[in-house]
């Protein structure tokens, strides 16, 4: 379990850090696969049968559907590399990593007090991945990278939900997943139109609406 959660943490740094969109998406697929494996593992270890259905749904949605949408978008727009973000590639990774791990260390013990599955590494990982997603949104200028960042913090939320509240009503899981899928589809459509109109996916250059 620790191995899987650490792999998820590493993959979130890779999703955030790779310049190549293709490698970023592949890292996301790897992370989603780790998440699905973790759901299966937790279901076996803790007798949480709800997590079996979560794992199956997450496999189709997160491992197959979401990456396929983003991959199709990148291919359609013929995008290969992300532009240099504000502060540079390396600095943005260091900032995101540092703040995310610090936040995770502070909040995880609070989660740990009440969590159904009290695995410290997994709890830290869930908050770390969520925060990496938030920093991806703040520090990256590429619309595509921001969609991936959204997917990252969505994975963080799902891991938290599995650890803290896997016995919540199945409608809850379904509601969150449906929202996430629709959000990715809508963002991808927007990104496509954005590229068509602006000629790029760099949101820092969009300054038609100010004040």
């Amino acid at each position, binding site marked *: 379990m620790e191995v899987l959660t650490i792999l998820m943490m590493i993959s979130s740094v890779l999703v955030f850090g790779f310049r190549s969109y293709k490698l970023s998406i592949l890292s996301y697929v790897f992370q989603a696969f780790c998440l699905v494996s973790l759901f299966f593992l937790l279901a076996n270890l803790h007798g949480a049968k709800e997590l079996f259905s979560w794992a199956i749904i997450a496999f189709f949605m997160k491992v197959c559907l979401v990456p396929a949408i983003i991959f199709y978008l990148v291919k359609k727009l013929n995008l290969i590399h992300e532009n240099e973000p504000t502060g540079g590639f390396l600095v943005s990774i260091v900032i995101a990593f540092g703040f995310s791990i610090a936040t995770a260390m502070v909040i995880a013990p*609070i989660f740990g007090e009440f969590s159904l599955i009290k695995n410290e590494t997994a709890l830290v990982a869930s908050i770390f991945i969520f925060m990496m997603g938030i920093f991806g949104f703040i520090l990256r200028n590429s619309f595509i990278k921001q969609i991936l960042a959204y997917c990252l913090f969505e994975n963080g939320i799902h891991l938290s939900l599995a650890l*803290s509240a896997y016995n919540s009503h199945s*409608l809850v899981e379904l509601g*969150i997943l449906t929202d996430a899928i629709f959000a990715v589809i809508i963002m991808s459509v927007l990104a496509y139109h*954005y590229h068509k109109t602006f000629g790029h996916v760099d949101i820092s250059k969009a300054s038609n609406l100010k*004040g």
Partner: protein
Amino acid sequence: MDILFLILIIPLFSALILFITPSNLKLISTLHIALSALTSLAIFSSIAKLISGGEYYAFNQILFLDYLGAAFLVLVAITGFFSNLYATSYFKWHFQTGHTTLKHIKLNLALAHIAIFTMTLSCISNNLAIMWAAIEATTLATVFMVVSKDNKKSLESGYKYILICSVGLAFAMFATILLYSSSLNTLGDEQSAILFSQLLPLAGSLNPHVLMLVFIFALIGFGTKAGLVPTHTWLPDAHSQGPAPTSALLSGIVLKIAMLGLIRYYAIVANSAGFGFVENAMLISGVLTLFVAAFFLIHQHDVKRMFAYHSIAHMGVIAFALGIGGRLGIFAAIFHCLAHSFTKALAFLTTGNMTRIYGTNDMHKMGNMINIAPLTTVLFGVSICSLVGVPAFAIFVSEFLTFKAAILGGKFIEVGLFAIALAIIFVADFSHFFMASFGKTVGEVKFGSEMSLWENLPLIALAFLVIAFGIWQFDSFWYLVENGVNEIKGF
């Protein structure tokens, strides 16, 4: 079939019908109006059932109708209907001038019903996680209503809207998970640990320190969606770029639904960690929001952008009233949600008329509207008078109650800050109103006469409601709000 199912199914069914209806403007407009009326009637029936028999539940307690939710359902039924009614005239003008296509009109009208569905679900969700999903879904349902054109401004506004709101609401999701795991640990029952109706009476037994963290997350999350500073930046863009009926729907209802989400957390956390904590957090957020919005409001000359900053300012008023707290403060906050909903819907719908007349939103290019469209000018004046809190208009009631609550509570510094912010808004608004309505016409007049009575009907109805709620006390609505306050106070 249970009425709570019915008020969810009708708008979904309506959206489906509109999607598959042939692209005939008259047909889709008639269907849109009829189906919107049906949804509103069903919602009123559900509220009538509550008033006559008290709270009731459906679907294993996952859905419920309580007084607090019902007070907000009133907005969905009334503001939603009038915005939808006006949408048919608005899109007809745009279609006639070649600014839009039938396909786009159909999509927009169908999405309006999906938005009504998500907002209704947000009001009647007893399960806090489902409420979160429904509030997030309000963003997803309305994003393509905002992105009405394939131009740079429209796309930029849509991008900001979906990204900022989704990131913000992710924090609210974390708040929900933390609340659930904490309450499950205390209550030991997985079914009731996430139900608002079960959590509220047992809030005293929950860990207050954890609930403080929950409230901070909820404030960031729902506050982003509600347009509270500093995460308000999506709002002026989305509200100013969307078509007028969409802006009315967003400002009139969607923001209030996010506020309802926050109020539900306010109630739980206040009954656990104490009212002092949540009140202070809301006060800080409210004052900050009021002043930032007032500052930006002065500089606006785009009428829709001006009203968008108004929405932020009034979200600040609601947060401020919740921060003042007490029975009166909370009552004022809920009442303000209704007053602002009618007023802002009227204001944004009036901008639809103004855009038709001048072909622009820039108030520097308007003028002499009193002679071109006198009724529109009067309606614009009614919305401005209410927005700045002139007596006998709806917003005056809630702002007066907020002042009263603050003075009775001895919060004199807060009263002073509140008065200064409102004074800035007052000056900014009237100067803008005079600029557009009187003096010489500066720009081009594209449509040189008043709209027909039918086209102005939704505006007249909203103006009547704005004045009526400022003068009379509607017992049924006051009953809902008073009982909603009782719920929050844990009586």
